[in-house]
Structure formats: C-alpha cells, structure tokens
C-alpha cells in the first residue's frame, strides 16, 4: 500500500514519507494493488515491482505541504471561505472622523477603514446625509451638484475629497465636511 504513493502524484497519499512517522516500515508490508493511474501488476505476478517501489519510496522524503491535502483539516467549506486572516493591531482600530454638513443640525462619525475607496465613501456619505455629490473629475471637481465633499488634512487645510490617492487620504484626513457648492468654489480647481 505504501508503494502507490511514489507513482501517484495525488497529494492525498500522506501515508508515505512523512517525517516522524514511526509506522512506515509496518505499512510497507501490504501487497500492492492496481490504481487507476498505475500500470504495475499485482505482487503475485511480479516480485520485482515491490523492490522498485521500495526504492522509490525512499526518495519520497520531503513532507507534502499540508495545504494540498484535499478535505483536510475537516472544516466545512463555508467556514473555510469565511475565515479571515489574522489582523494586526493597527488594522483592528478604525479611523474615525467627524462628518458635518452645512445646514445639518448635528455631526456624524464614520470609520474610514471600512471603505475600500472613494466611491464607497461617497455613497455612504450620500446615504447618510441624503444628498448627491455629482460627478467627480480631476479638472473640475464635483460637477452637477449643490454639495461638495471636502476634508481637513493634517496641515489644517481644506481639500476636495478625491484628489489624492485613497491611502494618502485616509492617513491625512482629520475631519470631513460637506460644503454647499457656492462656498466650495475655488477648492481643487486649478
């Protein structure tokens, strides 16, 4: 039974060649049989096949990476698909910033970490404050809207949301403000 492994590249054949396995010699005693991808004869017909197989068996000493064994460890696929890699300390805490809107009676707070990029952030802001930001373009800022999303950066300057790469934005944004279009003119328009 141990012989099949060297010819069978199927990684589920873990009985052979695992380091530290003390029962290898015992397993070598069982007679070889025919596998679908193995054309060797049964031991009654050919003793030589056993010898070749044992030799090959010694060559197979590298441990097979566990991740390749189909169906091991026995965890439901659903659970496996939903496992998330361990997060580092920094990733667990959020980046909370206050969000205000001209004319709104109170502020909100959002965690910038939960968004993957600007489109998601804008959609969330639009839903939160019930407004439409309009189309963003590098040249003209937000077109076709009364409201413009802006933010205060580390230097204390008010910037147009969307100009800098997302990572840079999340690292430098201190607070958000949704300004009325008339007051936002002059921001970000070069």
């Amino acid at each position, binding site marked *: 039974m141990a012989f099949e492994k060297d010819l069978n590249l199927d990684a589920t054949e873990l009985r052979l060649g695992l380091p*530290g*396995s003390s029962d290898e010699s015992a397993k070598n005693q069982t007679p070889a049989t*025919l596998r679908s*991808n193995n054309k060797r004869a049964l031991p009654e017909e050919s003793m030589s096949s056993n010898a070749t197989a044992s030799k090959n068996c010694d060559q197979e000493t590298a441990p097979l990476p566990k991740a390749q064994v189909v*169906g091991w460890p*026995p*965890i439901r696929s*659903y659970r496996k698909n939903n496992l998330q890699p361990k997060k580092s300390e920094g990733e667990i805490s959020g980046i909370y910033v206050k969000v205000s809107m001209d004319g709104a009676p109170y502020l909100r707070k959002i965690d910038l970490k939960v968004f993957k990029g600007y489109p998601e952030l804008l959609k969330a802001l639009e839903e939160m404050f019930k407004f439409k930001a309009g189309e963003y373009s590098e040249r003209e800022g937000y077109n076709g809207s009364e409201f413009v999303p802006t933010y205060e950066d580390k230097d204390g300057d008010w910037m147009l949301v969307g100009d800098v790469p997302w990572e840079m934005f999340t690292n430098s944004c201190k607070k958000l403000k949704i300004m009325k279009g008339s007051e936002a003119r002059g921001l970000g328009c070069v």
Partner: protein
Amino acid sequence: MNMNYFPDEVVEHVFDFITSHKDRNSVSLVCKSWYKIERYSRQRVFIGNCYSITPQRLIARFPGLKSLTLKGKPHFADFNLVPHDWGGFVYPWIKALAKSRIGLEELRLKRMVVSDDSLELLSKSFPNFKSLVLVSCEGFTTDGVAAIAANCRFLRELDLQENEVEDHRGHWLSCFPESCTSLVSLNFACLKGEINLASLERLVARSPNLKSLRLNRVVPLDTLQKLLMRAPQLVDLGIGSYVDDPSSEVFSKLKAVIQLCNSIRSLSGFLEVAPCCMSAIYPICENLTFLNLSYAPGLQGNDLTKLVQHCRKLQRLWILDCIGDKGLGVVASTCKELQELRVFPSDPFDAENAAVTEEGLVLISAGCPKLNSLLYFCHQMTNAALITVAKNCTNFIRFRLCILDPVKADPVTNQPLDEGFGAIVRSNKSLKRLSLSGLLTDQVFLYIGMYAKKLEMLSIAFAGDSNKGMLYVLNGCKKLRKLEIRDCPFGDVALLQDMGKYETMRSLWMSSCEVTLGACKTLAKKMPSLNVEIINESEKLESEQLEFSFDDRLLVDKMYLYRTLVGDRKDAPEYVWLL
C-alpha cells in the same frame, strides 16, 4: 390488558405522547393495527438519506405528514470530497409533495441541492407552510429566498445556516408583505449581499413574536441598535457588523438598549467586530447559555477571555483557537455548566502558531464536569492528556478531535495515540459519535470495537495498519450507523467479511483506501438492498478508461454505499457508477 381492545382513537392519543422518531418507528413495528394507527397519525418524518426512499412512498405511508427532514450528500461532502453535482436534489420531493394532498408545514434540509425553482414551487404549493430550515445547502440564490418571503403567508421560521447562496442583492427582504406578522425566527447570516435596512427595521417592528434574529455582515451597528429597540424580547441574537467608535452617540444608545434585552440566551455572529465595543455586551453575558464567536475575526485571546469571564451560565461555547490554552483555562474556571465546546482553527494551515494544545483540553475537562460534546481542533495531543480527560469526563456523547497534522504522534513519547483514544472510549460508555486523528494503528480500533458499544457514527482518516482495524469496528460496534473512512489501508477483506452488517447501517464511505472495483461489484451483487456507488472523477482515468474500466483489480477512489428500499437512483451524474 390488551391494547387492541381500545378503539383506535385511544391508541392514537397514546401515540401522541411518543414523539421521538426512533420510538415511533418501533411502535409501528409492533403489529399491523399499530402500524396503521401510527402511520395515519404521524406528522413528523426524518429521512437521514434522501435516496433510501422515494417521495411517493413517503406520501403513501404518511398522509398526515406536516414536517419533513431530509439529508442529502454524505458528510464528507462538507470537506470537498464529493463533487457538487453528485446528487441530493430536493426538487423531486417538493414536486411530489405539491402534487399530493399533503399539508406540508415544515421542511428541514441538510446538504441538499436546492434550486430557486424548488423554493418557488415550495412557496406556492402549501398554504400553511410555516418553517424552512436549510443547513449546508447550495444551488439557490436570493431570488428563491424572495419567493419564500413573498408567498408564505404564515411563515414563522426562515433559518439559513451556512449555505452557499448566490446573492442577487437585497430585495428579498422587501418581499415580505406588510401583512406578514408571524415571524418567530429569521436567520440570514450566511447571505453576503446588501439588504434594505429600512425594510428590515419595518419587518422586525411588525413581528411581535420574533424570538430569534441572526443578521448578516452588512447590517451595521446603528441598525442593530434600532432593531433591538423594536425587539427587546429576543431570545437568540446574531450580530452582523459590530464596529463603531465607543465614544459615539449610537454606541451609547446601543449600550442602553442592550440592558433591556434580558431575554437573550444565545448570542452569535460578530461577523465584523471592533474589540473595543465588546464591553457593551457584558450585561447580557450573565444569562447566556449559548455563545458562538467562531466567525468573529479580529478578537484576540484577551478580548475573548474578558468576555467569557462574564458568562457563568454558559452551556455551549463555539470559539476560535486564538482563545489559547490560558483562555480555555478561564472558560474552565468560569463556565461550570458547560456541556458543549467547539474550538475551531483560526488559521487551518498555519503549522507554527500553536494556539491550543492538549493543555487547554485538560483544563476544560477538569473544570467542566457536565461536558458531553466536544469538537477540538489543535496542533498536538498526547496520550497522557487524553487519559486525563477520560478520567475527568465520563459523559461524552460526542468526541471529535482534529489534530491539524493528520498523522501526528504524541510529541512527548512519539507513540501513536491509540492508548489515549482507548481511554476515552473505555470511560465514556454513552459515546455516540467519535472522530479520530493523529498517528493511529490497528490497536485503537481494537479498543473501539471492544468498548464503544453505543457508538453510532465514526470518522477515520489516515489511520490503521491493516484490514483488522476496520474489522474490529464492524464486528464490535453493534449500534454503528454511519462509518466514514478516508486514506486508510482497509481493503476488500474488511469490506466483504460481513456484508449483512451494512443493512443495519445508514451508510459507509471509503475514499483513498484499498478497496477494489471487483469487491464493490461483489458487494452490490450479493446485497440488492444496498446501493453501491463509485465516484470516479480522476482525469487520469479518461485515457486509461479503455484498459481499466472493467478491470476488477482497479482501486476505487471513492465508494459510498447505503441501504435503500428503492434501488438505484436515477439522477446520478456520469462519473458516478451505480453497481
């Protein structure tokens, strides 16, 4: 006094008190008269293998059927060992029931393929339909869920557990009509997509009987707060997203409303979680009997330990191994009522960071005298530890140990784990379910055959030396119902020694073992009451098919056999050979 002198109605009334499936099955075997009375009064039927009987025969025997439980694919399908289209389709069942006059009210499915068409037909065919529970199923989308929501006027329970559902985005929830006020249980935690939060709030607001609510990841904390305001009577809560700034107003509101939810006994979810928010949960921890944090990413050992310290009444705990051995020690000293523990690996392929070892298990066994059910994924186990656990715990009904390296020996002694598992079966006489792992020889099976007299289900992987191992089990475990084996040196001799045994069992699965096609054919021929299926997916086979497909010496890759009253199934795909 002979019961046959009582009129049927009296006997039937007596049978009303007999509720377990096993008992009702026994009752029906006593005599013709009891068989008849029993079948007309039977309302709940459990079918452990959907291919053991046809829907037509079910309907013919139990015209009063109200609740049906069906299981489809073999257990190892959970681990990707069974191809997706192998079978287990529910549609023929629903079609047959719909045609009949059965007033179906409840359908519970596990590991079945459920199409949107099935769900739609189900939703339109049974006016009194009340309860749908789908566990580990696949094949449907949120459109099918929408049909259930829209058409089942008296729906009480919609429970979707760990299903692979294609999400067509959000509208299914809005399909519950305004007139639907009967919901008692709603679990949609496994759905990935967006839902209409306002619809959800309105639904909960008009469901005064709602006791169980499990949300999915997209439901944010502020919605959770609003839902709890509407449903402080909840008994079972599954939290979706649990992320906020602890200093925010929303979070304060949540803390306040949680204090009002003093009926919550079961808590799960936390599909997205900020550890700093966990303190809001502490007030309900006191009363919790079930806590499932096994899907909560990002909670470190400390967070888990702090939480568990508040859970003195806990009976069931499902947790990730990042709780660590020390954390399990805290569980052991706090949760004296603990009956069931499941420790899942947070990183199944990480060989280096040993989160839990045998130490954690020993601590639990010492501190939790009522422990009767265990699922434990760990990096290593020793015989000494298992022997200690066996001394401390003699009430195990389920004992499943999974050492992540499948053939790992006792790291201290380098011995196989035969003695450890032997001790477990020897001292736990009520053991019904056992899963083995680690380095194991035939000896462990000798012990199992000798001591595990009540064992019903056994899962074996990468274990044993010879046919003797399997034979010890088949000969000794008189109550065995399900046996599943992968990658073990068991072959024809073991398979064929006692063919009649398989008629006393539900099923046998053997994959990557030493069983030949010839032996399977022999078994199939001699035992017409068994279906013997061979699954051959190997691409390598195609080229050699001509030479080997009729060669009886061919080792089969996967064999699944099960007893049946209705012969070969007609829905098997090409690569499944029905012998």
